[in-house]
């Protein structure tokens, strides 16, 4: 996800301040006396949040050595389930085979959701033909060798060439779009205007009637007046508008929850406990800074409660089987 220096949403900021004051009274108070090492590894999507948290935490707890790796969600779990890391960051819930591996190695863990990663599909405000869009249409537009004009996608759309905009290929946003829309083996077409700077994308799309692009939902929310987000059609055929609300109730198709998993044995160490406390206290403010969507307050409270009660295991796997249902319903 392309990080940018944005202003935190008022709601999340208020929540963060509340949480911060909570944390300050408990464990970060004497953080400077803590020693030891905390190893974090896992998803590169969660990395910007963890990086920011680790950096701020290291300023407070100067004697604790925090190390963060990006082996990817799967690679991170491999190390986590072998007991090599204290915390594993993940852009999907732990899978049943990973739960099995952890059990085999006698590793117990606590699941802590921290944020949402969501994409918005944006067009020019004067674009009055794209009312909704399906994932198949998005694929037809962005796939290598895809359509050149709007008409090729839908005969009722104008016969004009499309102008495509995308965040940089190194960003998590790009990776997620590729994975969710184009599929594992999909290849993005090359005749796209690519920019690492989200502002350039906003300018590009808002300056051309035939433009279409995508970026993090948080960034669209800040530029609502210049752009229009296209509702995305879900698997059942209903068009879901992109908003924090539809992301929260799990109905918006282009969003996914992000997690950290904490090794229960390590959670008993004061420095690890302090780190996770610090993570939860600050993640909402930092989540918006790096372009993700903060969890809604109830869900966040559930997540923090999970951690505080040191509730073991995952909500997504029961008796070795994957539990169906969206993230928010499982966590209600």
């Amino acid at each position, binding site marked *: 996800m392309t990080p940018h220096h944005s202003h935190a949403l008022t709601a999340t900021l208020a929540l963060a301040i509340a949480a911060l004051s909570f944390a300050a009274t408990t464990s970060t108070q004497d953080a400077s006396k803590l020693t030891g*090492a905390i190893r974090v590894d896992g998803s590169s999507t969660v990395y910007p949040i963890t*990086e920011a948290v*680790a950096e701020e935490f290291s300023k407070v707890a100067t004697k604790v050595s925090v190390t963060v790796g990006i082996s990817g969600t799967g690679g991170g779990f491999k190390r986590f389930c072998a007991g090599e890391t204290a915390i594993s960051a993940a852009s999907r819930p732990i899978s049943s085979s990973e739960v099995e591996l952890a059990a085999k190695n006698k590793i117990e863990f606590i699941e802590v959701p921290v944020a949402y990663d969501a994409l918005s599909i944006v067009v020019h405000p004067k674009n009055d033909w794209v009312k909704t869009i399906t994932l198949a249409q998005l694929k037809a537009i962005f796939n290598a060798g895809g359509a050149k004009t709007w008409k090729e996608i839908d005969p009722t759309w104008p016969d004009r060439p499309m102008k495509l905009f995308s965040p940089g290929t190194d960003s998590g946003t790009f990776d997620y779009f590729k994975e969710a829309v184009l599929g594992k083996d999909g290849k993005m077409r090359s005749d796209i205007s690519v920019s690492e700077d989200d502002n350039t994308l906003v300018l590009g799309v808002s300056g051309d009637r035939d433009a279409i692009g995508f970026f993090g939902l948080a960034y669209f929310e800040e530029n609502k007046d210049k752009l229009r987000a296209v509702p995305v059609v879900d698997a059942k055929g209903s068009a879901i508008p992109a908003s924090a609300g539809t992301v929260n109730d799990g109905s918006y198709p282009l969003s996914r929850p992000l997690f950290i998993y904490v090794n229960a044995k390590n959670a008993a160490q004061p420095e690890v406990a302090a780190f996770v406390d610090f993570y939860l206290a600050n993640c909402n403010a930092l989540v918006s800074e790096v372009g993700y969507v903060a969890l809604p307050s109830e869900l966040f409270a559930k997540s923090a409660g999970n951690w505080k009660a040191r509730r073991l295991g995952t909500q997504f796997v029961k008796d070795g089987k994957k539990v169906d249902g969206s993230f928010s319903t499982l966590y209600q």
Partner: protein
Amino acid sequence: MMSGRAIATSRRLLKNRLFLYGCLAGTSIAILVLCVLMISIAIEGWSSVSWHFLDSFASRKPAQAGIKAPLMGSVWVCVICALVAIPMGIGTAIYLEEFAKHSRIKRLIQLNISNLSGVPSIVYGILALAAFVRFFGISSSDDHWSIGDSESFFYLHFPFGPSVLAGGLTLALVILPIMIIASQEAFRSVPQSLRQGALALGSTQWQVIWRVSLPAALPTIMTGAILAMSRAIGEAAPLLVIGGFLLVFHTPTNLMSDFTVLPLQIFNWAGRPQGEFHKLAAAAILVQLVVLLVFNSAAIILRHKLQKPLQS
């Protein structure tokens, strides 16, 4: 008849000149590419190199970011790697060149070493992950035993985990074949007459090796060591596999410390979306080149010192 010979001569001379131009072109292309690379990196990175850059830890804000952890990590890992790989490489070469008889086993060993030098470094990373980081899974995470605690400088625990020691040993594996082959070449280039002379005077084999062959071979061995260490300092892939971290907020204090190295930091920064981080990556490359230069000049000075006694 005469003219035919003249044509043949001029053709030969032409061939000679073409060959010279070909060689010149090859050399200048190599140097040109290197120059373009160095200059573009220097232009991009120079402005970011400062004392602050060397003395701060990583940050998500480019202006505050520095390379203290990866710089010290690289130094630790490379020193460990040199201490392990160089004596081991020389030892192996001594055995193969001075002791081992020509046999099928020697040929087999020789073939394997040559093959190993061509194995991609990431494969060594996978081996090292199993061997050093996890000890083949013999000891589970619960009952690993240790010497000292994490505060003491001699702290050791088994298995090693993703520590500087494991990193150094991994790189030692990567460069060991290069080191052995270079040392063997060095011993082979020592004239047989020197050894025979020493043996004729009644020296033991140990005396021959220690007083004659090794000093004569050492300058060439050092050249091999420089090449091998230059490779080690630039490796990122095997360290990534054994679990080298990207973001570290401390410098190593003992052999069991977690670490990151310059190539990993460069990899991390170069992959960032923001342009400021690319500048930092270029600056880190400059620092890495300087570190490499320091290592190599130390080896060259050492070589110079060692060369003198034989010349007199």
